[in-house]
């Protein structure tokens, strides 16, 4: 009897866990949809910016004025850099944080061997906990970026990074986050956001922007735009705007990927719980049956002894 009861207890426990993981899965799915909507709505801005950049650089080529912006310039020597690590505030999302942190560590090791001072900034409690455990000092940490990062929040960070970079306090900004590629694939990556490198092609012809998107305007016949003010001045403004949009996109991507990772993790946890429930129930049935059999044989044995 005792064994069957123990199995029942286990069954109940697994069932409870399953309930929790199943709920978390549903919550993550709902959150993912919201985050996805936000990300796809934000994509319009990035797309438009790269379109304008392509138009601008097309007309710039005619004037043959080479364009320079402090944010675009590659520095010869790296004296100091910043690494921003975007992790989640909550756990139970599979390998999501692990992947990002592994990449971050590679970068940290690399700068250490190159002897470049590196400031680490972390967003998300998971990352903060990790660096504390590893006894790696962090320069700043943020926990307010949840699954709905707003542009205003990111703008504050972006402005600070631009300031630091232009004044020469940092020579490079890397960001470790999970890039959203498709529904089925998200990849932890490290990207260099500053210097931006090439915003527009320096040689004529190709019209790919640094954002990676092929500007749609390039395919269209060339349009003679009125520029107010000159293309150069507009570009000067658009470079920081494009950086901000990029940084914002990183946060959005990370938010979407986190929800997907959690969804997947919770889905497999639920499936696993289902399987466990099935095997425990089979075990219980067998235990119950053998108990009944033994009780029966005891009764029969007792009756036989009385005769």
């Amino acid at each position, binding site marked *: 009897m005792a064994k069957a009861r123990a199995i029942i207890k286990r069954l109940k426990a697994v069932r409870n866990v399953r309930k929790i993981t199943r709920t978390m899965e549903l919550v993550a799915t709902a959150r993912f949809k919201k985050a996805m909507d936000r990300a796809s709505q934000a994509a319009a801005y990035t797309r438009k910016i790269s379109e304008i950049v392509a138009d601008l650089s097309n007309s710039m080529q005619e004037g043959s004025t080479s364009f320079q912006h402090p944010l675009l310039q590659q520095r010869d020597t790296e004296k100091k850099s910043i690494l921003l690590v975007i992790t989640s505030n909550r756990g139970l999302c599979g390998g999501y944080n692990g992947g990002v942190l592994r990449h971050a560590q590679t970068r940290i090791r690399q700068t250490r061997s190159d002897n470049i001072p590196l400031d680490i900034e972390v967003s998300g409690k998971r990352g903060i906990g990790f660096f504390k455990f590893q006894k790696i000092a962090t320069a700043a940490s943020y926990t307010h970026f949840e699954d709905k990062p707003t542009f205003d929040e990111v703008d504050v960070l972006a402005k600070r990074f631009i300031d630091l970079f232009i004044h020469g306090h940092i020579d490079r900004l890397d960001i470790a986050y999970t890039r959203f590629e498709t529904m089925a694939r998200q990849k932890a990556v490290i990207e260099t956001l500053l210097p931006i490198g090439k915003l527009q092609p320096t040689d004529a012809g190709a019209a790919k922007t640094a954002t990676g998107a092929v500007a749609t305007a390039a395919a269209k016949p060339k349009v003679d735009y*009125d*520029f107010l*003010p000159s293309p150069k001045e507009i570009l000067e403004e658009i470079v920081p705007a494009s950086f901000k949009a990029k940084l914002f996109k990183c946060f959005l991507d990370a938010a979407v990927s986190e929800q997907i990772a959690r969804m997947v993790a919770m889905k497999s946890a639920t499936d696993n719980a289902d399987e466990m429930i099935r095997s425990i129930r089979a075990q219980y049935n067998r235990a119950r049956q053998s108990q009944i059999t033994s009780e029966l044989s005891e009764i029969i044995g007792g009756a036989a002894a009385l005769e």
Partner: protein
Amino acid sequence: MSGGDKLRLIVVTPERTLLDEPVASLRFPLYDGDIGILPGRLPLIGRLGVGELHITAAAGETSYFVDGGFVQVIGPNVTLLTNRAVLASELSADEAEKQLTAALAKGAITDEEVTARFAEQQRARKMLALAEKSE
């Protein structure tokens, strides 16, 4: 120019596409002053200033407060890229006034800081003016 809504206005902020609708004409601030757009405008790319985006459509007139950015006019499509666009009726004069006093009280030593402070003051003034107008 009452031949219906011939322009298509798209207002995009980094977070979402705020507006995508047909309009008859519009007026918004460029870096050096307001510009009006009517159907048939030649292609244009410009830098936005801070101030009121005034939309005239068949449905009526609406105003938004836009805070810098870029504009692209191509054919009938007018795209505004801006960091922030708020309905004028949702602006609060008190809030704008607070921002103005904060901007006025701010200390500035270097040239950059002085320019930044001036820009902030202008921004607050424009916001205040628009908020008061729409009240």
